[in-house]
């Protein structure tokens, strides 16, 4: 026993840090593409927590939930990028702030 051991708390900490970095980036950045990437960061932080808990409690259901998160993330990215393409094609220099013009 070398004293230093990787516990579940380490993984949870890393996952929470990824979630926080992604959330902060989502609020700070204006480029819709990078905002989508930040959403991916948040989802990955949560996935890491799921797998860490699955490993801790010996429960394979955490893996299944991560699979579902992956599917939903893929669908979300596809739809989000479709929207980004539609918007940026209409006005190439649009940022997320300019989308308030959609309110009419």
């Amino acid at each position, binding site marked *: 026993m070398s004293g230093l*051991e990787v516990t579940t708390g380490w993984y949870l*900490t*890393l996952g929470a840090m990824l979630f926080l970095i992604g959330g902060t980036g989502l609020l700070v950045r204006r480029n819709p593409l990078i905002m989508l990437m930040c959403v991916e960061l948040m989802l990955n932080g949560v996935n890491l927590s799921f797998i860490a808990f*699955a*490993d801790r409690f010996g429960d*394979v259901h955490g893996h299944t939930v991560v699979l579902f998160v992956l599917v939903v993330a893929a669908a979300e990215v596809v739809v989000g990028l479709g929207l980004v393409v539609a918007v940026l094609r209409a006005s190439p220099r649009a940022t997320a*702030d300019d989308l308030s013009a959609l309110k009419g």
Partner: protein
Amino acid sequence: MVEVVVFAVAGAACLVGAVGVVLSRNPVHAALMLVMTLFGIAVLFVALQAHFIAAVQVIVYAGAIVVLFLFVIMLLGVDRAAELSLGALPAQRWTAAAFGFGGAAVLVWLVAAVDRIFKGAHSYELERAGIVVTEADAPATSYATDVSAIARSLFSDYVYAFELTSLLLIVAVIGTVILARRSYGADGRRAGQHGGESAPAESGATPQEARQ
């Protein structure tokens, strides 16, 4: 000891990549930083005995999603340096700062709480929830994490959710095709053929266009 080294290297890659996504001015660099984070997380999945999930992570995320991002960046030609400091919404800046710092504070508290729970001091709450907390220093319980175990839970307990994801994917695909195609006029001519890239589709004579 090798576990600690693996965690340190992969975790550092994750964090550097995440910060790089947020801070890089060029969207292409951000996408590549995202790849770094995703690979780090895949390594951590392997360290957590989730080999199948690690493979899916690399294939789906790095192989599909990031490639999709890069395709869109290439398609739109938005790979120029973006403005990092737009003072448009100062309230949102403050929200972001509060989210970051408040989240970090909660994080410290939470990790302490989780460690305490895992040490067994408050394990009765988990036991009441039906979760058996083994001894804190026990190695990870040997449980089947191979594809067959995941498939067994996916196709028995979660079979309705699984079928719903197929519906979700179909809706997403059809919706994206409708969203991303250029609309054609009644004569079959491309709307926006004359205006180049920036001409909107005829259904999209938006307030944005009027504002410009």
